[in-house]
């Protein structure tokens, strides 16, 4: 049985992404791994005293988010695992793909747009970079309508 890796986060945009990953896992009869990367947000003007607490709480939040996704996927009949990673998004997703010997990576376009590493312009580049580095195809789930040409 192959494995699909879905890089997800929280928020409105993540639900359609997770649903699509579940659908793909059912179609391919593959296992599903949800990964949430807690990346340091350099835009935050952080009080140094709070850095450990923020890191701790973000980890809690990531675990809670993935647990919710796991319950939904299990209810749909998918074999699912979750993993929370800390570090650079690109590196950590590559690591997960290799660890689980994934056959497909699923990422979201809109969620990406909101985040630091996945700007709207950068999501395609990110996908290409992942494909080049790991040899695994990447499916981008477009969560918002395509902009007019």
């Amino acid at each position, binding site marked *: 049985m192959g494995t699909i890796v879905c890089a997800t986060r929280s928020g409105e945009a993540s639900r359609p992404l997770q649903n699509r990953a579940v659908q793909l896992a059912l179609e391919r009869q593959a296992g599903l791994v949800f990964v949430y990367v807690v990346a340091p947000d350099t835009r935050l003007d952080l009080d140094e*005293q709070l850095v450990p607490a923020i890191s701790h709480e*973000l980890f809690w939040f990531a675990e809670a988010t993935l647990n919710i996704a796991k319950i939904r996927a299990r209810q749909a009949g998918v074999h699912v695992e979750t993993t929370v990673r800390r570090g650079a998004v690109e590196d950590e997703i590559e690591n997960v793909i290799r660890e689980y010997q994934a056959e497909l990576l699923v990422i979201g376009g809109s969620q990406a747009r*909101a985040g630091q590493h996945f700007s709207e312009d950068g999501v395609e580049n990110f996908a290409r970079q992942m494909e080049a580095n790991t040899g695994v195809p990447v499916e981008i789930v477009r969560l918002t309508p395509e902009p007019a040409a």
Partner: protein
Amino acid sequence: MVDILLNTIFLAEEEAPLLRIELIFLTIILIATVIAIAIRTRRVKLPYTVALVLAGLALSAMADLPLLADVRRQIFPALTDAEGLVSGPILEEFLLAMLVAPLIFEAALHVKWRDLRKDLLPILLLAAPGVLIASFIVGWIVHTTAGTALVLAITFGALISATDPVAVIAFFRSLGVSKRLALLVEGESLLNDGIAVVIFVIALGLVREPEAGFNFAEAAGIFIQEAGGGILVGLALGALTSLILVRIDDYLIETTLTMTLAFGAYVAAASVHASGILAVVAAGIYVGSYGLKNISPTTRIALDNFWEFLSFIANSIVFLLIGLRIELFELAENALPILYAILAILLSRGLVVYFMTWLSGKLGNWIPVSFRHIMFWGGLRGAVSLALALSLEGIPGAGPIQAMTFGVVLFTLVAQGLSIEVLIKRLGLSEIAKKSEAQRRIASLFIARAEKQGLARLHREGLVADILYQALSDSADRSVNQILAEHPELEQQLLIQIRREMLYTARATLAEIYRRNMISEEVYEQELKEVDHRIQAWEAIEASFDRNEARKMEG
């Protein structure tokens, strides 16, 4: 300027002791009025600042009624004779040094250099060449339409073209727009006074001595002295204060230091004929970005509370005084020039905002079109324009210029101030509206959950038949799941709320086991600090989520 203020205070102490009592009495009346308006505006849908201006206007109009004027003469003979409290140089100094300076400092404290740096290009384009261009456009229009002498009209252009930091910040804080839009509008208003004051000083010099003529080198010298000097004084004092702040951990000393810096920067810059306002801005941004970066949570709370209180009082008095100073009959007498002036400032503001933001985009810093509309309509004028206009006392032709200033200030505060909220909502830029909508959905969720609990209780007590309970319970379950299915974004907010509840419960539990002597004071304090840090951490995390949402919206 500072000399006049000090002389006024000494004069009041030595020669007119009655004036001091009147000052105290007037201050108490002003504060009482402010509290009444603050309570009232919670019920009436009227921006607090607009309500204050209107209340000031009403008080001003009432003071001129024969009966009230007579009563005022009986009670305040010195005040009535001098009219020193609400007009002339005393008001100018009082406004700038005592009220505007702390307000600007408080606003600057919240502007982080790392955020400002990202949008420095459009802010500087609007604050420097933007104000220069607008001053000349306004001056030319007023000269052509109202027949004001060209140099005097440019003087008016200079004093009216810079958006007012106090008015802009007071409005935009209550409107709840995105952090970037607020920064663009507030940043411009904080930095544009430097160039405005320079044009004003040069033009005023030419009004006073027309034979002297315009001298570019002299103008550049004034600019360097006013703007450069102000920023330098502010940065130096800000850096010095920051050095002390990072070495101490005592919230009383730290709060006192920031207060001293706010007034000290203004006075120090003014004493070397540099811009006091720019000095306060520079000092505030420096200390807010570096001096207060690693302060303890206790100091943070104490500082926030102190500055929130001080700015509430100062802000309230500024707007009330603006209303008090504007006399309706004076506006009526100069209705036509005021109308021309309003058209001139709208036209110049529109040209400058749309051109400079377009230019900023071409230079690599794009600003969403919806933001540009708000930057145009949100360019409010207030205390600084009023203070500069009051400093024209004694200049031939100053009367109509002052009337035009009061008219424009009133127009921007009331007409633009009342309509900007509607525009922000129409353009979908209100963060408050979005949060309220999300909170309403959360409330629906809690109501649905509470209804089910109520139903279960009635069932347990035997008041609801099994079949009825089953049917209604299914329906209640469906509504909870329906709300979550329709609004998946609630999941994230619920998670955050649940986490906060968990942390508060942990805090209460810690206190409880400490009270029962199950843990030592040392352990209690250590654990409490950690839980408090986690609670505080959510402020930063939520701000980060909000920023992501705002970015989506801007895109």
